[in-house]
């Protein structure tokens, strides 16, 4: 039986050599006949055919097992076996204020009537904050609205305060701004957007669905499945039983790919899971995983082809993604019962920082942290301050 790993594309030259090898072992003088037109043509056709067939085999391999598939193959596989599809992602929702000048209007506004922009992203009028459509914007008045990004994706999240000032849809005398922060976020972002679900997350959901087979008893993976299904932005879930006296209790800690869970996601998960358990028997509570900022001290050398500001933000993103790839509770150190974010991971993340696909960091000397970051079983690491870092440009 051929092993799974052996199913791989056979390139034309390899196929040709192997065919010639077989013919040779059959005592067929390959050099003589292969020089002829027809024989050589058959060899060429045969090796190309083999190459094509091996591609089909590789494709079959990808379609057959979810863990090795991606893209369309994974989509079909997931739908077929698990009734799952890629999460489509979410629209980002921001808070903006529309102001109507004295002497203009009134204007009657409905959902989708107004498009605003920060110059790079567009947003549509979605709802009235503390009000409802149709909304009459009267002369000399202001009103807060929620606007929804024109497309799904996380690129619509990081909009600077005060940046949304362009009225793409013109109403004479009406201006817009997003200078007011949304509650708890520190920015105008009300609800974060996200892109289409990653292959890894879809595979994880497929895998976790096995744990939902027993409706009478939920295991950790069951809760993890329900949490990921309820909140698309989440990628990490940790479930702990508290062994509490009296009422049984389960705590669910949540985090996204780059940070701890937002309050909306925590509430969403809480509401979803609450529907699945008998609260008189099991008390389930969802929490944002406690975040441990990891401040950096030391020197980071970067290519002078890039600005310090660009490198700073790229390093922060690289660290956030690396921390986000580590499970809640960190990586276990075998034998001593301690979970950590290894220092080597931090250094690697900095060194692997790229801008436009090109590495921009040329060297790292950290004085802090100087060892692995210890985490409790429910904590996550997030990037901390880099104000104590010396950023040194190095001529390329």
């Amino acid at each position, binding site marked *: *039986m*051929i*092993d*799974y790993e052996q*199913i791989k594309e056979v390139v034309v030259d390899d196929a040709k050599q192997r*065919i010639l090898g077989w*013919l040779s072992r059959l005592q*067929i003088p390959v050099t003589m*006949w292969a020089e*002829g037109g*027809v*024989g050589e043509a*058959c060899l060429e056709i*045969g090796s190309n*055919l*083999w190459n094509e*067939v*091996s591609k*089909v*085999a*590789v494709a*079959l*391999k990808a*379609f*057959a*097992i*979810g*863990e*090795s598939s991606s893209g369309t193959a994974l989509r079909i596989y997931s739908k077929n*076996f698990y009734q799952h599809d890629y999460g489509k992602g979410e629209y980002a929702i921001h808070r903006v204020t529309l102001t109507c000048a004295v002497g203009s209007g009134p204007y009657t506004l409905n959902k989708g009537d107004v498009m605003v922009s920060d110059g790079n992203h567009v947003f549509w009028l979605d709802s009235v904050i503390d009000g409802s459509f149709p909304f009459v914007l009267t002369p000399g008045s202001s009103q807060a609205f929620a606007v929804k990004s024109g497309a799904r994706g996380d690129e619509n999240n990081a909009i600077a305060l005060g940046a949304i000032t362009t009225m793409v849809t013109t109403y004479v005398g009406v201006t817009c701004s997003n200078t007011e922060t949304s509650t708890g976020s520190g920015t105008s972002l009300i609800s974060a957007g996200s892109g289409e679900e990653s292959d890894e997350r879809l*595979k994880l959901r*497929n*895998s976790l669905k*096995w*744990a939902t*087979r*027993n409706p*009478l*008893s*939920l*295991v*950790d*993976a*069951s809760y993890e499945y329900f949490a990921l299904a309820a909140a698309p932005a989440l990628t990490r879930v940790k*479930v*702990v*039983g*508290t*062994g*509490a*006296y*009296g009422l*049984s*209790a*389960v*705590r669910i800690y949540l985090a996204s790919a780059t940070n701890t869970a937002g309050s909306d996601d925590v509430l969403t998960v809480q509401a979803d899971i609450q529907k699945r358990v008998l609260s008189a028997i099991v008390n389930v509570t969802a929490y944002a995983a406690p975040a441990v900022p990891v401040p950096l001290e030391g020197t980071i050398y970067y290519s002078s082809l890039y600005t310090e500001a660009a490198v700073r933000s790229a390093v922060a993103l690289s660290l956030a993604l690396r921390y986000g790839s580590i499970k809640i509770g960190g990586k276990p150190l075998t034998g*001593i019962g301690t979970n950590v974010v290894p220092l080597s991971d931090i250094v690697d993340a900095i060194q692997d920082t790229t801008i436009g696909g090109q590495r921009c960091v040329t060297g790292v000397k950290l004085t802090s942290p100087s060892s692995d970051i210890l985490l*409790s*079983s*429910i904590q996550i690491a997030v990037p901390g301050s880099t104000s104590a870092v010396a950023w040194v440009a190095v001529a390329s």
Partner: protein
Amino acid sequence: MTLLRDFAWNKLRPPWMKYGRGARETWVSLDLIGDVCADLLLRSAMTGMMLTAYCSDGAAALIGKERRLPRFIGEKLETYKLRLWNAWEAWEYAGADAGILGQLQAAGLATVQHALKFASFDFDTGTWGASSARQAYCKVVPYVVPGQEGTGQHEQSSFVLVLTSASPTSPEVMECVCSDDTICGEAVCGSQISIDQLEALNSIIEQFKPSESICRKVCFAAADDGAAQFIDTSAYPYIVPRGTPEF
């Protein structure tokens, strides 16, 4: 395939392939290629599809990851494939006694003849039902810790796991389980349980226990000679059930 080959040989073969220079060699090469292609497709279909009965090591590992049933160290491929084959049932009983014990059996921690019969624990008397205790060699049992003073509450979401490597000879074996006085220290079922198995044990508990519960203790009872021996897992960090919350 044979019919097609005969048909091609008799009907499709052009004159140059019958009589020309290198005709035989050309036919043989094409024939070989055909066989190789057919074989490749067949094998890829056999090994690649989710047919756990036919899959190889590499495919089994991937299927196991997807079904959340990692292969135990030293587990034979045939045994593992059978476990993957029964994944549907395994997960149907996750969070229940049968789910935990079924995986323990697969890990070699409870042999097949250790039937899945469970003793009932009498909360009033603090003892096991004698009749069932004689039959129960491998158990997931509730574990009651003293109540919080003044609250009248007991922790009822914890359990102990009792494993025996041989038939207990008396109900007393089971009666000892909840007593801290029974910790003997070193011997683990006559040294029949390996470190790998203990790791597997920990993993099974973590994965298949009900979320709200905590496995307070794993007890190994060796009763070949009629004397029960127990081990308190807290003495062994690698088998202390994980999941104890840190707040």
